[in-house]
């Protein structure tokens, strides 16, 4: 191998790919350093580097890169996601430019970055980017193909959907994987809901950016959010939906009001920003769970 060790930020793409990137590298026998879970220190480091108006998860992402560049590693992996569904659906501009932004900020030199280009065609991740990555790392074509086959893409979310106990509400968590799966970013909402006696449901990670029913939306994760909420809206076992909306997320901001107006299942939008307080999150979750309980008592009708 020409590169001896690679750092993977535990942020954005790590969660979008369900841990695939680190597993793939490990199967190529590349030593992998995964940055630790997001905490205040990491977030503050990212905030120091990043623009004020950029979305909350990208600030955290910069913190993870900042942590990695201080480690004894040769390169940081930041794939460039270009398009999904053969160029019909696209990542937002900020996510697609993560590598360029990191370099422009002086956080990491371009030479120290691994930036394979990933396309998604109609059946999933095109192999081109993986071969590009493998070639950069000195891996053979056979080794890349083997590692690709051994890793199941998008199938290892950190949380598993739960079944509701009798009487307790089931709440589905809607949002981008890198918000839903990151407890620091989402204010530990999963644990808080469990403490309130709720069963928590998650969107499957499979087919990211894909929409079984074509939404016509331009942005990949907004299309996924819209598809998921439409499925959940027809699922009688879901009592309520909590939509985790990070500050200044354009694609989800655009559809938030539309979803709230057109979804029959009660939905609460929890805007997450760096100024939030745990107390505020608790209060809103408690109020929402109380509302659902009242609704159940009233026979499914909101008071």
């Amino acid at each position, binding site marked *: 191998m020409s590169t001896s060790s690679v750092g993977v930020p535990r942020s954005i793409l790590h969660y979008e790919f369900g841990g695939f990137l680190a597993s793939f590298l490990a199967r190529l026998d590349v030593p992998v350093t995964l940055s630790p879970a997001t905490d205040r220190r990491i977030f503050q480091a990212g905030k120091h580097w990043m623009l004020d108006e950029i979305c909350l998860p990208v600030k955290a992402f910069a913190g993870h890169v900042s942590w990695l560049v201080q480690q004894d590693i040769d390169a940081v992996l930041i794939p460039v996601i270009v398009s999904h569904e053969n160029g019909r659906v696209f990542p937002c501009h900020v996510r697609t430019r993560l590598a360029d932004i990191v370099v422009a*900020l002086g956080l990491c030199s371009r030479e120290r970055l691994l930036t394979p280009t990933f396309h998604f065609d109609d059946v999933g991740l095109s192999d081109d980017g993986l071969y590009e990555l493998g070639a950069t790392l000195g891996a053979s074509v056979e080794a890349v193909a083997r590692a690709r086959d051994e890793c199941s893409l998008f199938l290892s979310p950190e949380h598993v959907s739960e079944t509701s106990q009798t009487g307790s509400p089931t709440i589905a968590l809607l949002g981008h994987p890198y918000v839903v799966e990151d407890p620091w970013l989402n204010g530990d909402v999963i644990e808080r809901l469990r403490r309130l006696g709720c069963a928590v449901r998650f969107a499957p990670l499979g087919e990211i950016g894909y929409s079984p029913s074509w939404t016509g939306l331009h942005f990949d994760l907004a299309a996924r959010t819209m598809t998921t909420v439409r499925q959940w809206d027809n699922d009688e076992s879901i009592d309520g939906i909590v939509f985790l909306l990070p500050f200044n997320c354009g694609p989800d901001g655009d559809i938030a009001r539309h979803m709230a107006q057109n979804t029959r299942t009660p939905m609460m939008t929890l805007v997450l920003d760096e100024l939030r307080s745990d107390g505020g999150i608790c209060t809103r979750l408690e109020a929402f769970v109380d509302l659902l309980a009242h609704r159940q008592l009233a026979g499914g009708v909101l008071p």
Partner: protein
Amino acid sequence: MRYFTFSWGKNYIAVRALLRVLGHDLATPPEITASVIERGISAAHPFLCFSGKLVLGQLQAQVDRGEQHMTFMSSLGPEACRCADTSEYLESLFGTMCPAFSAHRIGGDGIGTALDNLQSHFGPRITRTQCMRAYAMFFGKVDLLDKIERHCLALFYHCPDPERVRALQAEAIRRVDHAHGMLSLWRVSRWFDRVVATLPKRTSPPLARIGIVGGEHILSELDSILMRLKLLAEQGVLLDWRGGFRCLARSNEARLAPLKEQCGAYLSPDVSTSEIFSCAHALDFAAERYDGLLHIYAFGCMPQTAAKPILQRIAKDAGIPMMSLAIGDRFAEEGLDNRVEAFVDLLHSRRTSRKVAV
């Protein structure tokens, strides 16, 4: 049938030309006033970019006055942004208050999808030839409007008689709107060139030369910003803006390739989003030794938010001061004036000190 849309600066005139070829017409959008802005802000989600809020405000004002058939031009390629997926969103906003409301998205990523879009909205009898004529008029007017805007922006510095420039700009735009064919557009262009040649010119060098980069929507849409900047030009600052709406129509890879090569040190070559234009223009200004860069964008604009750190890096590497102005809900013209004045003072004193050092 009469359609309505948002203004895009004066680019609604180009949309009107496209519709006229197809036998339809377009209402003149209302001016962007404080009340239109407020309507947009109240209708939109807070995270929508400020340009989007202006658009919503203008649409809302037209729905109020009874317009029912909306059309909007959007690109569908990777360079597109929210405009590419707003149909359903607009239906949900306006459909309830206006039962006959319909939204027609025109545009596409090539003649094939453009024709499909036109046929799906205006009927299957639209021919390929009609489609090509409609788009020829659209792009002809977009380009001529862009030329007029850009020349007049520079003329506000070059010509000591700003009133004549203002009158020329208004008359040129009126003539573009009334032009019904490519030949008449060419005549308008020739007439404009002739009048420009007759205007008196300043002989003194500019206080500073500033290159403007940023979001096309906000630069076109909000006349108040450009008006403030034009006042700056009248005070002896040479302004240059190389954007234009042509950038927002889908650009093919052949056209993007040289720009991507130019931006190779800053941008990944596989991504074809609209930040490429801002970065390429900034690099041009740097190569031409402009005194400063002014980055103007709408708060919440995703392409420009992604471009901002990259533009800052370009300016830093070139040793040129850059000021970013985010125009958002709390935008105040006084604040803009103060910041721009301070920036011009900085550039002027920098230029003067360089001369002294030489």
